[in-house]
């Protein structure tokens, strides 16, 4: 790499590294919700956890191009680890969170070697298989996991011995928000780096990536392990804030839903998972309180419309609107955050 290229790459990363206004808006809004939406903390907590889970999928799908139908395996392992740890060892939430992250990272590391073999379709099958196997293990180990009845008797101690989990879900939401934000910062650092760029190269053309000397396998193993840890922590958050774990943390529908949310929100810019979770869960909450039986129809319809219009075009419309407000010329057709 000659100095000129180095300079261009450094400038590119520095540009990316700068926080965009919309990013501030997003996190400040999430923080403001602690005071402004006191009656919605429970759903917000669920959205935040699901968003974190979706972001972990974004790390492998959006950045490394690994499509997975079994990401709930890590989410579920994290949830069960945190739940069982709370019952058998101690109810301290932060320790449980860390342990869940390590457990899922371990599983992610081991199974990443399976994912390296084969491409898209084979990967879908392999990841799906891992989740199914884990689900059946959880079903069979009744003495440990409670089997089909679910894991009961999870009691979580106050965070740092001070903040008790309340019935309004306030502590739960603040806890999930802080954990998600910290993990987001790390993920942001990770993807806006030479490492992150090399992942994108692999996503776009693995053959060329290896031709220019990128250690493709090692990079994929690394990001898969990190994503697994993230998913595990998301699962642990769910287990701790609901104080219950059942087999559906690991079920296929959870893997499928999170993929769907990521598709709604958009891949490859980290916020897609959060945005998708917000849209999906928010719509589900609003529409299903109008029509508990037929809300899936409306969600489906909205998805179809979303696909027909195309997210890029919608983003462009928003960006154009914003630009007009500021009196600047309309931007070029590209997404407003990220560069996909």
């Amino acid at each position, binding site marked *: 790499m000659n100095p000129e290229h180095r300079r261009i790459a450094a400038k590119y990363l520095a540009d990316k590294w700068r926080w965009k206004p919309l990013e501030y808006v997003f996190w400040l809004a999430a923080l403001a919700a602690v005071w402004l939406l006191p009656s919605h903390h429970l759903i917000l907590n669920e959205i935040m956890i699901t968003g974190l889970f979706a972001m972990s999928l974004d790390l492998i799908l959006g950045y490394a191009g690994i499509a997975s139908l079994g990401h709930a395996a890590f989410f579920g392992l994290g949830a069960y680890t945190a739940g069982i740890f709370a019952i058998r060892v101690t109810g301290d939430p932060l320790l449980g969170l860390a342990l869940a992250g390590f457990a899922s990272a371990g599983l992610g590391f081991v199974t990443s070697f399976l994912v390296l073999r084969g491409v898209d379709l084979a990967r879908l099958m392999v990841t799906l298989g891992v989740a199914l196997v884990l689900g059946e293990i959880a079903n069979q180990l009744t003495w440990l996991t409670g089997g089909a009845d679910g894991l009961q008797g999870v009691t979580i101690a106050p965070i740092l011995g001070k903040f008790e989990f309340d019935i309004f879900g306030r502590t739960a939401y603040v806890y999930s928000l802080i954990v998600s934000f910290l993990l987001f910062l790390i993920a942001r650092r990770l993807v806006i780096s030479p490492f992150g760029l090399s992942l994108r190269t692999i996503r776009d053309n693995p053959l060329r990536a290896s031709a220019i000397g990128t250690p493709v396998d090692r990079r994929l193993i690394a990001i898969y392990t990190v994503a697994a840890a993230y998913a595990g922590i998301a699962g642990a958050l769910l287990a701790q804030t*609901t104080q219950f774990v059942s087999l*559906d943390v690991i079920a296929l529908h959870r893997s499928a839903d999170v993929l769907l949310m990521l598709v709604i929100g958009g891949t490859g810019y980290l916020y897609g998972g959060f945005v998708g979770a917000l849209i999906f869960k928010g719509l589900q909450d609003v529409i299903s309180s109008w029509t508990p039986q037929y809300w899936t129809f409306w969600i489906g319809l909205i998805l179809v419309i979303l696909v027909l219009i195309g997210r890029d075009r919608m983003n462009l419309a928003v960006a154009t609107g914003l630009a007009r407000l500021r009196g600047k010329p309309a931007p070029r057709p590209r997404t407003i955050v990220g560069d996909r």
Partner: protein
Amino acid sequence: MTRRAFIKTGAAAGFALSLIGGGALAQDTIKIGLILPMTGPFTSTGKQIAAAANLYMAQNGATVAGKKVEIILKDDTGVADVTRRIAQELIVNDKVTAIAGFGLTPLALATAPLATQAKTPMVVMAAATGIITERSPFIVRTSQVVPQIAGPFGEWVAKQGMKKVVTIVSDYGPGHDVEKWFTDRFKANGGEVVNLRVPLQNPDFSPFLQAAADFKPDALLVFVPSGVGTQFMKQFVERGLDKSGIKLIGTGDVTDDDILNTIGDVALGLVTAHHYSASHDSPENKAFVEAFKKATGGLRPNFMGVAGYDGMHALYEGLKKTNGAGGEALVNAMKGLAWTSPRGPMSIDPDTRDIIQNVYIRKVERVNGELYNMEFATIPNVKDPSKAK
């Protein structure tokens, strides 16, 4: 007044008004949060219970003890953490007097600690695992308990002179319960049992049917989730086991009224034990079935529907006694209630808050062109044997 001050005052006034309004509403309205799987694989449960609960309100009026009763129906898609979150929102935001529904065991278990914490009565209208009512002193059940059906059935089968039975159950909680209670009671009455378990996810029964046939049993007991039952019966008939002298028996879940007609003739002659059949011969049931069909456009009520109907009855009667008050008083008022339900006589056990009811032995027959579970023997007033101390 500046614009900002105006907005502030307006907002404050609105907030104050909403507080007053909210207070007044809370006094005049009794809200019942009904949490059911209205979408996803267990939609049928939700549909039946919601329809029956609405029917009960339509028949008995929406007023109890001078207060308006309002059902808030929520869809939990059959996922436990969602059920819990919705229950929490209903208790905290909507200030419901009671929560009800709960389509599956984990959904009820996930919510049980909340009922205790918030002192909110919780009426379980579907989930059937024994331990549920022990998880919170605020739980009352109006559906059924697995051991309540499987235990007496084992005894009854033994008394029919059968010596050898093979059980095939799906490998999950409720399946294990059926297997255990049937086997215990059947063995206690001198029978011999071979237990087989099939994976929940894998509906190919042929190797298991072959293994079962090799034992040459008098009867084959089956328990699988209701949709899978059809497949099981088809394979049973395809392999000619129906002609080999092996009787197919099961709990009533396999011949659920809701799907019995779609199972078709392979179900004919199947002997099952359960607490409710749409063909139950009583004036109460005839009226119920007719009204239910009318309200739902021809849907036949099943055991889920009747549990929703009875759950509303328990709540109504309890609220009448407490004059509309909730909390512990309401749970106490529901304890010991006894009435004639469409399913027959039933009561709420004052000690365990669980249901006491008749268990009927039925046989699938074709009546007026439709398949029905025709009751031919009754085991009266069965308590949950898993809680008998």
